[in-house]
């Protein structure tokens, strides 16, 4: 027998306790949506997983109203310390239910279980733990004393890291004192709905987080709803641009985390074996469905052939197949639509004269799959070197000098991330200084930490998520902040205390006192198990 044909080692789905149908999570409860329900399928088998409600405009309005009520009556009045307690509790529940979440994520998204188990879910817990710690320290967020929450945050997230993107959005929003209406992607709603169950388990006050499912029109209705104070979006540049237009002229704040076409620069003095691993991790992690993926390999011309040869032998050891098998390296492409786009752009690459090489792997009969692919002989003018493919496709380009590497790396409308591989520390620092990208990895790639801000230059979006900077996206300085939030509250017909209807400057000390007097009660609730 061949040892390398490892016997199947599937993660059991017995840990899942899925419902056949899922409603919308509004005001702490699951309710039926009024749009036409849709199915979520496993991209690895095309088998149906569950039927999911579709939120129409009326549902969106209900969710925003619930978030507004929760903001005014509960969440904005609660002490930071107590908000932190809820976040810590959510983080612990995520850890307790880690296996279940990982299996659900791999089932619904198609990503290998080793990634959902070792990367996605641990990072989700880390994000909640990190921002839980911030909740009572907002005075140190860099916005002066007593920064204020913005109000209701509308959050729309993509399908590539469904639960992790949820955590990136919800954790800082709640820590800063906002309430949330979140819409997961149409193809990957499952873990967000299980997360809603976790929120019930955590006894989070009703309406603080509302999760509504649906397609693009639901998302558009949400971000354009007038009750929303803040829009946070992660996804394609096209949709991001549409959102920016939609909210232009309103006082909604926005953070957009959009596409990327990252350069991964390999100098000839790089630690070569680790660079190969980094290139593989950079573009084939999560089937290349990563906005910060290192999709443009810029390799110094004198080591081009060696790098490509080593890369090809390494790719030949990657295992494509069942995402739930613990030995799978490359899972399924998330949807037929995405697969078509990858195929189309790959064909463009061939038509443009680049040379295509795909790893020899057996493609399963059902489901959506694309073998890890490298294009060599790619020119900077090629479409596959300029457009985001969002799949397991690497374009290899060459450079001669550090200056040329920097120029080529920056020659893109995007600017989300970049990688530098060199044994020479001074070169790493000098090159990093001149790259126009929000995140730069040196001798590593695709490493994430809740303490590190993440975001883009140019068409990769604006605003930062993660770290102290990520809090700033959900806060306003005391002197100018809240102007949108509190008067708007009154206009939505909610019950408002006198302090909330007065001007911010006057309200602030009083609101502080109110919060202080409520601390005892809230603490008791917060510590209930």
């Amino acid at each position, binding site marked *: 027998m061949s*040892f390398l044909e490892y*016997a199947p*080692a599937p993660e059991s789905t017995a840990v899942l306790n899925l419902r056949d149908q899922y409603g919308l999570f509004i005001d702490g409860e699951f309710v039926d949506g009024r749009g036409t329900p849709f199915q979520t399928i496993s991209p690895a088998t095309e088998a149906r997983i569950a039927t999911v409600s579709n939120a129409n405009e009326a549902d969106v309005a209900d969710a925003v109203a619930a978030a507004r009520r929760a903001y005014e009556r509960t969440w904005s009045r609660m002490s930071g310390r107590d908000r932190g307690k809820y976040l810590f509790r959510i983080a612990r529940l995520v850890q307790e239910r880690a296996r279940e979440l990982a299996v659900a994520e791999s089932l619904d998204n198609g990503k290998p279980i080793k990634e959902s188990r070792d990367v996605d879910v641990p990072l989700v817990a880390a994000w909640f733990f990190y921002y839980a710690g911030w909740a009572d320290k907002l005075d140190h967020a860099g916005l002066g004393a007593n920064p204020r929450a913005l109000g209701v945050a509308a959050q729309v997230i993509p399908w590539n890291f469904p639960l992790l993107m949820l955590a990136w959005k919800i954790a800082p929003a709640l820590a800063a004192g906002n309430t949330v209406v979140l819409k997961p992607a149409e193809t990957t709603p499952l873990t967000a709905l299980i997360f809603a169950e976790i929120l019930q388990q955590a006894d989070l006050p009703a309406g603080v987080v509302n999760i509504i499912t649906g397609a693009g029109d639901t998302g558009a209705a949400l971000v354009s709803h007038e009750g929303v104070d803040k829009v946070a979006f992660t996804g394609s540049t096209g949709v991001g641009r549409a959102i920016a237009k939609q909210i232009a002229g309103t006082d909604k704040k926005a953070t957009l985390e959009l596409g990327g076409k990252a350069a991964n620069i390999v100098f000839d*003095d790089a630690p070569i074996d680790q660079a190969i691993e980094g290139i593989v991790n950079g573009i084939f992690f999560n089937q290349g469905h990563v906005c910060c993926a290192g999709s443009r390999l810029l390799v110094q011309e004198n080591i081009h052939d060696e790098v490509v040869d080593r890369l090809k032998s390494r790719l030949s050891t990657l295992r494509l197949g069942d995402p739930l098998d613990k030995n799978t390296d490359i899972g399924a492409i998330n949807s037929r639509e995405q697969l078509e786009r990858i195929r189309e752009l790959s064909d463009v690459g061939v038509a443009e004269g680049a040379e295509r090489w795909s790893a020899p792997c057996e493609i399963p009969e059902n489901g959506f799959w694309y073998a890890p692919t490298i294009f060599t002989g790619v020119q900077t003018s090629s479409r596959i070197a300029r457009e985001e493919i969002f799949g397991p496709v690497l374009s290899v380009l060459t450079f001669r000098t550090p200056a040329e590497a920097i120029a080529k790396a920056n020659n893109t409308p995007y600017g989300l991330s970049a990688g530098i591989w060199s044994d020479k520390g001074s070169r790493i620092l000098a090159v990093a200084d001149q790259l126009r990208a929000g995140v730069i990895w040196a001798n590593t790639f695709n490493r994430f930490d809740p303490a590190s801000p993440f975001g883009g230059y140019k068409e990769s979006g604006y605003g930062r998520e993660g770290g102290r900077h990520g809090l700033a996206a959900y806060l306003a300085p005391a002197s100018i902040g809240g102007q949108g939030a509190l008067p708007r509250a009154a206009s939505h017909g909610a019950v408002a205390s006198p302090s909330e209807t007065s001007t911010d400057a006057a309200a602030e000390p009083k609101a502080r006192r109110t919060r202080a007097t409520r601390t005892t009660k809230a603490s008791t609730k917060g510590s209930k198990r």
Partner: protein
Amino acid sequence: MTGTSLITARERALAVLGGEPDDATLRRYLHGIAGVDAVGLEQRAAGLGTRSIKTTSKQWALDRIIQLIDLTTLEGADTPGKVRSLVAKALVPDPADGTTPRVAAVCVYGDMVPYAVDALGAAHGDPDDGLVSVAAVATAFPSGRASLEIKLADTAEAVAAGADEIDMVIDRGAFLAGRYGLVFDQIAAVKEACRRADGTSASLKVILETGELVTYDNVRRASWLSILAGGDFIKTSTGKVPSAATLPVTLLMLEVVRDWHLATGQRIGVKPAGGIRTSKDAIKYLVTVAETVGEEWLVPHLFRFGASSLLNDVLLQRQKLATSHYSGPDYVTID
């Protein structure tokens, strides 16, 4: 068992180095090899360690681990009786299960070689034929702090007594002082001392003692140096210093072996030794070998485990697979 002949090895080294193997040439060559990023190396090793080896794959792996073990006793208190006991264990690892394969070799101090050879009797020979080899540590093991004459005599004596394999230590002091030429010459001389009167040669395993070289860059250079000088195997450790075999170090040495094979077509063996005590750990090494150099390396001539307590853990796991329940330490024999 025959190793590569010395002349071929020297010619090959001259061709690769492009000059005499003196300090300056070796330094230029060894320091021209790409560096190692410690974080990335350890990350890759950890990733390989997450492979899940189940059912039929696990069965195969457990049997193969036994076939790759150099069952070792290297104590000041070793006696002929202890060596006979070790040999008996090597030949019949599990008396309750006749399907259990034999280990590859027994590894002893040079003066214990005659007792090992005697105890093996007709079962002494090439592990490829289902027989058990005798490996002897030599060259003033474990420190290597002795004159070259003594190291060569140590080696020649063990070979004359019937050792099939010599596990030598490099002069770490000379390596760390940058005297690469001296280390090269000593390995080459020991390789020469491995020759038998009939023209065949004992296989030479070169112990780097990675715990004393400390950095991965040093390990990579010492690996290249040992292979250039004619070693048939590169081995991590003596087992006598606190930091012995680790998965990242073994991965790094396998990468050198892979690159050497690409460059010259010659296959060099790798032996992690010391600290590998559980089946679970040993399986991670098998995975690392298979995914780095290919599974054709998982044979006694190209990969070994230097271990003693590992064998009984593998036997317990083997019994578990056969009976579906765990037994206990009294259901495997001590040697």
